[in-house]
């Protein structure tokens, strides 16, 4: 457990040994089968798992990893997390002989210091062997667990000093040996979890991994293991080739960006992420040198596996979406992730919250850096939400409950060139299904009072960010609420001259004499009947709002995304009438003169400052 382990785990892996030669068509067919198996595996888990975050909100990710630990195929899931499973599996593979790998085995790992993301992300995996008992590939399925047996229920603690506060790290352990479940091990893992739904979840994960391994076995039988191996090699090479082909069309240069997180959970301010994207011919290097390394920082340590995954998810969103997602992506990019910084922490640092921040800021910084050369594909694939209000209680039998469905409505859905932000989240999180009030209120003692978008919280721009929602919730029984606020001072950044998104905010015990604003991190006991109100930030704007078509602004006002006042102040568009009366019209003359005035003022300011004016 050291940086040495990390260096080994990320080292580039060689192609699989095979005598077979495949053509692109055969390789494509086998790759399609991998995607389908991942899809089947994920559906199987979603339908049978017990906790809302998996079965309702869809936080489960399936991937196929080859015998060398390379990502061979993925399907549904959260992009950032789909890229994480290989490192956890690589740790398992290092012990192939000692751990006596064989057909019908199922393993689990979640240790951030051994290739994992954060503790709640359990990777369960099962290998597939050929007729000669040689390993071909591994079906991995990863899902978020609602508890990890740490000091606080829920897997997240705002004051963790080290990983052991957060729960039990598992580098790798075998859950099923040659098809037989290991009762003692399962018993221990289940014992280290507070949630009564956990046994159901782990049972569902095991059967999903077994299903995937069985399907892989059938595929190997049909095509022959050597052909499957050759197909994996072909696809990985092809992805690298296509990625490099795109990079070679980008202008050479070094593109840099800095992003800050408001504070860590202890109140240390302005946690810094710096990224340089260097393009030289067909080689892209992502250099994170310069990221914060203050030892006193708390909870903003992102594991190496996550840092790679979040960086890659952003990069992939900026490529041709038809490029197949596999190890070839990582082969095409040089990543410099400095040891001892918040993007590759020293051992034993807490990892739960780091998987949100600075993980997302890595993606955001890459997006900002590359927006200079790839405006048409620039949209940050991030969530800037710190830790939104987690509500946890215990029922009369002492069993833990957590309203753990994904309550997010609209947040961080940013515009890109030519397209306003839309829907609830960026497309990179488009796989999460948001929890429903009718379901949550039938299970947990909560009432959802409101979850509507708040006017003017989307960043203004020639293309507008989607507004963020205000979630107001009442708890009916005493419980504990935890939260960590970021993105108040440093909200999601506007791109290419667009405005920043509206900031996040949070209030507890709303409407009572004890009402207060949460600005840092909090773990609070709430009395029965308490109301909490969490405002999500909106999406960021793209390009100068003064360039937005006045008719589009009028439509925004009719739809109450934008107020008449903001239309004037942010967009320079003068409107008459009101949304209420459905009679909004553009004052063409007023708009022209207002926009001219704004342009003149800007020119004067820029000229006076002596800044470069384009």
């Amino acid at each position, binding site marked *: 457990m050291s940086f040495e382990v990390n260096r080994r785990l990320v080292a580039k892996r060689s192609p699989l040994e095979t005598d077979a030669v495949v053509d692109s068509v055969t390789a494509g067919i086998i790759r399609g089968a991998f995607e389908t198996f991942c899809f*089947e595996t994920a559906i199987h888990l979603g339908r049978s798992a017990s906790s809302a975050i998996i079965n309702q909100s869809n936080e489960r990710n399936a991937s196929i990893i080859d015998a060398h630990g390379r990502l061979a195929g993925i399907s549904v899931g959260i992009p950032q997390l789909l890229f994480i499973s290989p490192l956890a599996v690589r740790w398992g593979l290092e012990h192939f002989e000692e751990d006596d790998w064989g057909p019908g085995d199922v393993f689990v790992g979640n240790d951030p210091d051994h290739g994992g993301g954060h503790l709640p992300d359990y990777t369960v995996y099962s290998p597939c062997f050929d007729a000669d008992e040689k390993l071909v590939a591994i079906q991995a399925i990863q899902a978020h667990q609602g508890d990890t047996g740490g000091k606080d229920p829920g897997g997240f603690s705002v004051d963790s000093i080290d990983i052991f506060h957060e729960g039990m790290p598992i580098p790798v352990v075998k859950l099923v040996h040659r098809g037989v479940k290991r009762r003692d091990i399962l018993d221990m893992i289940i014992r280290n979890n507070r949630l009564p739904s956990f046994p159901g979840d782990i049972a569902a994960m095991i059967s999903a991994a077994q299903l995937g391994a069985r399907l892989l076995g059938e595929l190997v039988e049909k095509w022959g293991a050597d052909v499957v191996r050759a197909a994996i090699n072909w696809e990985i090479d092809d992805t690298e080739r296509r990625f490099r082909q795109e990079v070679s069309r980008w202008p050479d240069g070094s593109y840099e960006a800095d992003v800050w997180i408001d504070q860590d959970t202890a109140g240390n301010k302005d946690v810094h992420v710096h990224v340089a994207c260097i393009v030289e011919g067909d080689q892209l290097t992502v250099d994170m040198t310069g990221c914060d390394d203050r030892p006193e920082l708390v909870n903003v340590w992102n594991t190496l596996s996550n840092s790679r995954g979040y960086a890659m998810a952003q990069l992939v969103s900026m490529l041709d979406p038809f490029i197949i997602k596999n190890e070839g992506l990582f082969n095409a990019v040089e990543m410099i992730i400095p040891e001892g910084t918040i993007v590759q922490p020293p051992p034993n640092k807490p990892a739960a919250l780091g998987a949100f921040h600075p993980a997302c800021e890595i993606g955001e910084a890459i997006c900002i850096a590359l927006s200079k050369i790839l405006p048409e594909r620039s949209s940050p694939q991030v969530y800037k939400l710190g830790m939104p209000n987690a509500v946890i209680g215990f029922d009369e039998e002492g069993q833990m409950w957590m309203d753990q469905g994904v309550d997010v409505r609209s947040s961080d859905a940013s515009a890109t060139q030519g397209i306003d932000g839309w*829907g609830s989240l960026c497309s990179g999180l488009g796989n999460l*299904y948001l929890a429903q009030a009718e379901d949550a209120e*039938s299970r947990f003692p909560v009432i959802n009072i409101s*979850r*509507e978008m708040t006017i003017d919280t989307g960043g203004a721009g020639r293309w507008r960010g989607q507004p963020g929602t205000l979630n107001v919730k009442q708890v009916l029984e005493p419980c504990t609420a935890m939260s960590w606020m970021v993105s108040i001072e440093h909200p999601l950044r506007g791109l290419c001259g667009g405005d920043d998104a509206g900031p996040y905010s949070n209030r507890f015990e709303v409407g009572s004499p004890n009402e207060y604003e949460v600005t840092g991190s909090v773990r609070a006991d709430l009395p029965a009947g308490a109301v909490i109100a969490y405002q999500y930030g909106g999406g960021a704007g793209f390009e100068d709002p003064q360039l937005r078509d006045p008719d589009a602004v009028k439509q925004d006002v009719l739809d109450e995304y934008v107020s008449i006042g903001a239309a004037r102040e942010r967009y320079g568009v003068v409107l008459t009438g009101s949304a209420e009366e*459905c009679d909004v019209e553009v004052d063409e003359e007023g708009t022209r003169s207002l926009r001219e005035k704004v342009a003149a003022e800007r020119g004067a300011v820029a000229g006076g400052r002596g800044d470069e004016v384009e």
Partner: protein
Amino acid sequence: MTYRVGIDIGGTFTDFALLKDDSLVLEKTLSTPEDRSLAVLEGLEKLAAREALSLGDFLDKVEAIVHGTTIADNTLIEMNGAVTGLLTTEGFRDELELRRGYKEDIWDVRLLPPKPIAPRRRRLTVPERILADGSVRTALDEEAARKAVRRLKKQGVESVAISFLFSFVNPAHEKRVAEIVAEEMPEAQISISHQVLPRAPEFERTSTTVVNAYVGPRVTAYLDQLVERLDAAGYSRELLVMQSSGGVMTREYLRGSPIRILASGPAGGVVGGANFGVAKGAEDVLCVDMGGTSYDVAVVRGGTAPAETSWNWHHRYMVAVPMVKVETVGAGGGSICHVVSGALEVGPESAGADPGPVCYGGGGDRPTVTDANLILGLLSDDSEFAGGSFRLTRKGVDEAFEKYVAGPLGCSVEQAAFDSWRVVNANMTQAVRRSTAGKGIDPRDLTLLAYGGNGPVFAGIQAQDLGISRVLVPKASPTFSALGALTAQPSIDEERSYISEAGSADIARLRELWEELDVNAEKFFLSAGYDRKDITARYQLNLRYPGQNWSLTVDVKTAKGARDLSFVSEAMRANAIDRFHSNHENEYGHRREDERPEITGVRLATSVESPKPTFGAGFSAKQREATPVKLRRANLGDGYANTNIFSGPELEPGHVVTGPAIIEETFTTLVVYPGWRAILDDAGDYEITRTS
């Protein structure tokens, strides 16, 4: 002699299947999109003429007209439905737009949003709130509701959807607001969520209600007009309309939720497939319908086509009514073959009917699957195509493949065609696998049933890819969906939410909900002229383990005749729980004896047995090798070879065709691949099985 007529209105053709006692007549007319009922009448006239009757005399003898249509789908494709507004609970204005976070492509930042049916300005909220137990937390603010209705009216809204939280438990507020809408906007159509889809959760129910409001006026107007025309022509019985659930029901029933006819065309084919399969001794059937632009896949198990109610995205909108699950991929005869960054791809873009494949000679210049089939010799340009309407031409086909596929890949034209054929095959195989996802279905246990114009060309190789050893191709395959509609039974399938720990579920409440469903269903059956004694009712419970989000439906009781709910008891409840544990083990490989399952709702599926086509079967005819009519150079997967060509219309029951061979039917072509042989059974349908 009595007649029954099945009608399937598609984009290009309107298909008819006339059942005269046991014999079958097929007919086709061109669809008339501007007024679809015209093509229906024209086809009926053709059928009457074939029976040497006037239209009036013919219709007088017609016992039932069963009808499937894509009109609701077309409204969603063309986005020309009613101007729609939504009234919803305060605080929940945006659920519809946020789509539970769903985006169709998680990798593409340039994915465009769907066109909103009800944009935010036409989604207005009303202060009111009902809780999970049906109690009122916030009383309905009638004045605010009236104000919101007036704001919709000002925007020219024609159709109003009303969806409040927990209305399926307590619909009082929805009902009252519907009255207010009726007062303020007497012309508007009203869709109320507790009537359209009385179940949780709110996004699914609200979206379904809004889509219903959007397509409803067009569907209703169309059905009214069709009924009027049929009435004027002399048909006085009820028109039965195919539902997406696979059952048929009267126009009166559909008036409350016209959304239930969405995708009813493909559903007809699948229901027909289920019946066809049972007749041929195959209860587990993989139905594949390959047309010009798409490949539709559905799985029939145990002789029935199950309708699913969850997570049905249809044309980018969530529609959660029971739907026969059909997986569609863009793989059809018109799918375009092209090279993207060095990789060969087929579809989803299609040349459609206009310009069509290059070999149609209609001006198409991009190579398609049909063109590849022509190069491979699976189709030919020396005989008539599509029932003799035209001939294929080789002109320009090789050039198109050279330009778009062979050139970029650096291979021969024949290789390019062959690879295209392989890729489209692989795409279809993946679609099949997706349809079996999470279901524990092994395709090898299924019989493959192929129909549609292009289905029989690929059926054999599909079967080979999937490890399937038996393939069926109906003689009526080109109009199989219309025939399928005739096999569908009048049925109503509805559910009501009720969430409770199963072991302690309130027996009185269960009885009350089933009674409500039963009384409602009975009303529509009786008014359609059916007798209670003929109604079969399947009482079902939806169950899950605590925390699960997907329920399994468990059959509790099936009864025919008068309503008798005496079976609802504690013993029944215990029984249902046992059955759930074993169903869960079958579906998901494990059971959780130490967990206490929850009930999430009650469901009632009612139906009436009505006469339907009986598909013949059996192999009593003496088996003998058929005689080929000619030889053609063709590549059936193992390279080019001279291949026997048979003429379908000349084949008779008992005839055997051993692969490699090609059978040219009137509206379609069957390929018998090497290692397979086809036999015509006593009914004249093809059974193709492995010989090696």
